[in-house]
């Protein structure tokens, strides 16, 4: 365990979306603030800072996590993925992102990055995820615009497409 001093900034070295990254943070700085303010990765959003809305969800070493409930200094050495890394190339969308667009699964888009991170993690780890499983994972997120139904439809559609892609591979 590193010893940290409350009044000092500490270096944090980690991998952000597959690339080495570093910055400094006071021990109390939230990961969400660190990603947005220090790293300039503003795709991750902050809606409540108390762990309920899920907008700030990122992947830490492959698992979904609330970046508003994580301190920046905790991610030393970790691999962090954010919404910025989901698309396969700058002008393209991932299967899941594309399904969101097709099904009107977003309106204001503020909750969307967190939801995409959770569902992307789910579909990557459980290719057979059904509507119930998708709803379970989605229940960790609040969306005020869509009423959720289009998000479930998009995730189911994406799961289907991903399964077909694997079968055809």
């Amino acid at each position, binding site marked *: 365990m590193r010893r940290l001093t409350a009044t000092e900034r500490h270096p944090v070295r980690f991998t952000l979306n597959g690339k080495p990254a570093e910055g400094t943070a006071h021990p109390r700085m939230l990961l969400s603030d660190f990603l947005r303010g220090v790293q300039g990765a503003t795709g991750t959003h902050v809606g409540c800072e108390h762990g309920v809305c899920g907008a700030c969800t990122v992947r830490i070493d492959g698992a979904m996590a609330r970046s508003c409930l994580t301190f920046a200094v905790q991610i030393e050495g970790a691999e962090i993925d954010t919404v910025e890394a989901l698309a396969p190339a700058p002008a393209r969308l991932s299967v899941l992102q594309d399904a969101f667009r097709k099904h009107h699964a977003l*309106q*204001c*888009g503020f909750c969307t990055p967190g939801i995409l991170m959770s569902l992307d993690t789910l579909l990557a780890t459980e290719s057979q995820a059904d509507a119930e499983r998708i709803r379970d994972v989605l229940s960790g997120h*609040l969306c005020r615009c869509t009423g959720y139904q289009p998000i479930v439809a998009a995730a189911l559609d994406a799961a289907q497409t991903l399964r077909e892609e694997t079968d055809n591979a």
Partner: protein
Amino acid sequence: MPKDGLHQTMLRVEDAPLLTGRGQFFDDLPTPHGTVHAAILRSPHAHAKITDISTDAARRLAGVHAVLTGEDYASVASPLMVGVKLPIECWPIAQNKVRYVGEPVAVVLADDRYIAEDAVDLIDVSYDTLAPVIDPLKALADDAPVLHDEMGSNLGADRYFSYGDPDGAFAEADHVVEISVRYPRNSCTPIETYGVLTRWDPHTRSYDVLSNFQGPFSIHPVIARALNVPGNRLRLRTPEDSGGSFGIKQGVFPYIALLSACARLTDRPVKWVEDRLEHLTASVSATNRAITLRAAVTAKGRVTALDYDQVEDVGAYLRAPEPATLYRMHGNLCGAYDIANLRVRNRIVMTNKTPTGLNRGFGGPQIYFALERLMQRIAVELGLDPVNVARDNLISSGAFPYRTASGATYDSGDYQNAFDTALKDGRYDALCQKRDAARAQGRLYGIGLTVAVEPSVSNMGYLSTALTPAERAKAGQKNGAQSCATIAIDPVGSITVQIDSVPQGQGHKTVAASIVAERFGLEPGAITVVAAMDTGKDAWSIAAGNYSSRFAAASAGAVRIAAGRLRERIAAIAASQLDARPEDIEFGNGKVFIASNPEAALAFARVASTGHWAPGTLPEGIAAPMRETAIWTAPELTAPTEEDGINSSLCHAFIFDFCGVEIDPVTHEARVDHYVTMHDCGTILHEGMVEGQIRGAFAQAVGAALYEEYAYDDDGAFLAGTLADYPVPTVHEIPDLTILHTCTPSPLTPLGAKGVGEGNCMSTPVCIANAVADALAPASGNVDVTLPLSPARIASYLPDEPAPPEGIAQPRPGPGKGLSGQGEAHVGAAPQEIWDLLMDADQLAAIIPGAHGVKRLSPTHFLADVTLGVGPVKGRYRVQVGLSDLDAPNNATLTGKAGGALGTGEGSGRVTLTPDGSGGTVIGYSYDAAVGGKVASVGGRLLDGAAKIVIGQFFAALGRRAGDAPQPDGIIARMCGWIGGRR
């Protein structure tokens, strides 16, 4: 029925950036060098005089630039204008007195938000608390505490209206049916909170503000006035993206004024992002309202007159644009029914709660909750089928345009057709059979109905209905609703559109692109639409913004008009080049051509850019097609008449909802089983977006119906400070929804469209309430249900609730955070030893959990500095402890008063020391306490547990201090059993 030629199913142009983390939301945008970050100290009290604000410690903190108070604000800025003339001042920061929990008291500006919040905790404010008043009807009582001394009472306005002959209708009525309802405070709570970035230029004496404000821009002059600058010295810009608003982001404007004044006072750019606690506590919400509604009814169930008595609770200040919530529906008070006689009394009252403002549905949920509960009650009391009561009272198909009693003109509709289609396609018969079958099995199953008219495109003049005709005459006429759109064609013939609707997720850019693309025969993807508004450069008027579902009906229409004008000019240019008549010119596939001879075609870009490259070749009398701004208002939006008639909105869509709800016999949870919503919103511009609006509003309405309330305790403490205490529904709480459509286009809007975004926020809460009331009826008779219909509330409506099983506590009644309890602890030391410890400041310092030091002020007064954590809120408090009724070494009364940045607490307890006969002491205690401020808002659910733990720790430490080990079975465990739950 979609409009021909538009791209009703096209993918949204907004989506790709939002899906890839490239959104341009407020907090994603860069800040100027030297920006300081604001944090706001807010009142923990609902009603108190500020006797002192000590900011020295906060100012001394490294990284702090300034600590500003109401007095500082008043040195450079003014109060916010109030819409109705009242002798009150509405300041964005408290002046000497606080009137609601969460009211700004001081602003800290610091290098970063973390430091600013540290400094907020160091500000010491002394308050003299005053009795608060929370309930709007109690606030009207003669002996109620008065919020604004200048007013002498809490009554802001009292207006009577009469239309037709209500007295005659009531005199002749076969029945008079009455209902009294309360509509609670709730909010559509966008996931993105408020943000303000503001700068002052001392040379031009002007402000430059970036904020996720949503309009209406009638607020712009209010802010400019508050900041003592003319409108052209307040440049207000909005970001390209906004994370939802639903009306709520109108309420950021007091902060624009407050923080702009701070920027001026410190000569630094100031940035503030609201946190969720601030948002829930002190942004804006729907008004809560008490309504008594009476109907004159014939024997057959035909309503001939309505009589409304409304008491609107606007919170602590009547803040612009209120009392708009009360008047937005003024033309629509009879809903979808043909009722010619109407009487209204509208009172506005102030209470110690957060000032209200726009919230999706805006006035509709309140009106329809009363009206549709009444229609159900009429059916029940007259023994009629609610379907027939609703249908028989509907405005008939041939009556459009229909003028309502209070002066609105319903533009178009075929209500019977929509109603019947919904019953058939939504399988109403099957639902009735399901209810009958369920009831036969003894289950609690009910059906609810709602018909509603959804108004859209507000008349900017409706608010003046709040004034008497004489006052209106003096103040000058107000009417209309200007929509603006600008289309620019650049030198390569590509097109940029500026819209005035400040979208917050509705996809306006996509619709605007498809309208323009259709006019010019281009691909929608080729059109750029800019949503970010800039009052310094763009065309705008007071009606601009994202409210009253005005986009489809009004802003989109302005886009179409501007495109049409440019199209005509381009056609004229093409005609002159092709030697044809302008009316023979068509547009398609990026070309402009002669209809009869498509071979004779010119590239659109080439013709369209002629104005830039060769203005000399333009045909005579044709202006260069480089830029066109359309400004459109409907002539139908006239000012209120002498008789107080008001066409409060331009368009009127129709909604008919019905649903089946089952109440769980064990948990008492209401489960929506089947929900059908029928909409006639005129021409549909984009199917996916219309469905999105309906689903989104429906989900928010389910929250309002069953879960959400901005709850206040009797002492004014705010009880819903986290998203766990204000339970916004997750996917699990949203039932399936069947959406149906019919279509009667509006003859009054350029595209035939009507608004659709707010309807279900108006219709769904009462539809579910009607179903719950119907489900309860066999067991409980007529119940006056109140929202939200939480399991605890439903349980309270059921007759003799069965006793809980042995060992299970009674469910807690409603929210509340008063604490009380009692218990015993056993300590192995004599009463005198214990007594001595309790009377010794140094000893107490070691015993009180989290104490940093205890000062003895007098033999019976101590001052303790304590750190306590309740759930997520850990903070430092100064606790004054007083001892009285001393009877050494047997018993004493302890009173405590705690205060700190995170909240306040007050309580008293009685401690008795009884020898146990074997050298030890049984300590008995009982306490009552109340807490306020942040602790109550965010930790209310956890206070019980926290109190138990703290008391347990106290006695464990006392036992240890007195030379005793805790009892074998663990003192904390035992105490948890002893201490009663909160009552």
